[in-house]
């Protein structure tokens, strides 16, 4: 301890140490985050009016269908297969009419069966529970990785679809 520190009032002393701890912690946090493979950027995408939210800015907004009406038009055309990314329990409670269930957790268990039924040229529309849910995007990416060429994400998902009174089962 230096002579200068010895003369600090208790309040000034504790404040100085709090600041030291805070500065050290912030430096440590950002350093670890920078080098960590699971680190995240300092700013994420949290505005649902832009699209699906994400802490990592890894959402491909180019895949997104932003309006329920647009999704309904595709549904009415009968040219697309809707794929539900939510858990099986939620799918069983209710889903877009004719949608196929592929929960993310069991994707690799059922994807071969799915590919055998729907060729990779099929237009696929993935969805989950809305703009705060990233599963539809993750599912879309997995399907693209499996060779599907036409994949879109219906970002408002089942809740908005149901709210509009569109076909469910």
């Amino acid at each position: 301890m230096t002579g200068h520190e010895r003369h600090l009032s208790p309040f000034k002393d504790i404040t100085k140490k709090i600041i030291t701890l805070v500065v050290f912690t912030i430096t440590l946090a950002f350093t670890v985050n920078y080098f960590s493979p699971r680190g995240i950027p300092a700013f994420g995408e949290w505005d649902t009016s832009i699209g699906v939210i994400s802490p990592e800015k890894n959402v491909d907004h180019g895949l997104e269908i932003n309006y329920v009406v647009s999704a309904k038009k595709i549904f009415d055309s009968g040219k697309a297969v809707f794929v539900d990314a939510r858990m099986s329990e939620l799918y069983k409670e209710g889903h877009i009419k004719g949608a196929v269930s592929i929960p993310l957790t069991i994707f690799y268990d059922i994807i071969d069966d799915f590919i055998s039924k729907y060729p990779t040229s099929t237009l696929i529309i993935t969805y989950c529970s809305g703009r705060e849910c990233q599963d539809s995007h993750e599912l879309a990416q997995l399907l693209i990785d499996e060779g599907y060429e036409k994949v879109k994400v219906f970002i408002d998902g089942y809740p908005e679809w149901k709210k509009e009174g569109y076909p469910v089962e």
Partner: protein
Amino acid sequence: MNNIFDKMLNNSWVELILRCSLGILFIYSSTHKIINPAGFAKIIYGYYLFPHYFINIIAIVLPFMELVTGICLVLGVFPKPAAAIINGMLTLFIIILTINLIRGIEFDCGCLSFNTSGDFTHAGWVIARNFLLLLSGLYIMFFKKRRLFCLYRNS
């Protein structure tokens, strides 16, 4: 009776037990957040209280604040300032949880683990728990006797 109460309030062993317990709890609560900052950022978003610009920054810094202050308490390095920071965090947690309790929003507090089942702990219980922790933190912060097993007691 007063004498026993007084001894309890100024007992170095009580301080040591509270300091280590609170420290270990904060270290434990930081680990799942440090391992999964993206998941923690989503939890913070789920509170619907923070400006979007701060969500990731909170998710990056807060877990390390819990870790560092927790280690400080256990090792006895800057115990008083570390307890002051922990008390500040606990006060903020109580305020935030109370706001959401009043708003009636059902959410995952993300305090000690991330909930994946959708069965959320009631905010009232979490607030009560944080009050108890805050009492421990205040005891450590205002403890005036000699602290036991401190690497750097001079604080």
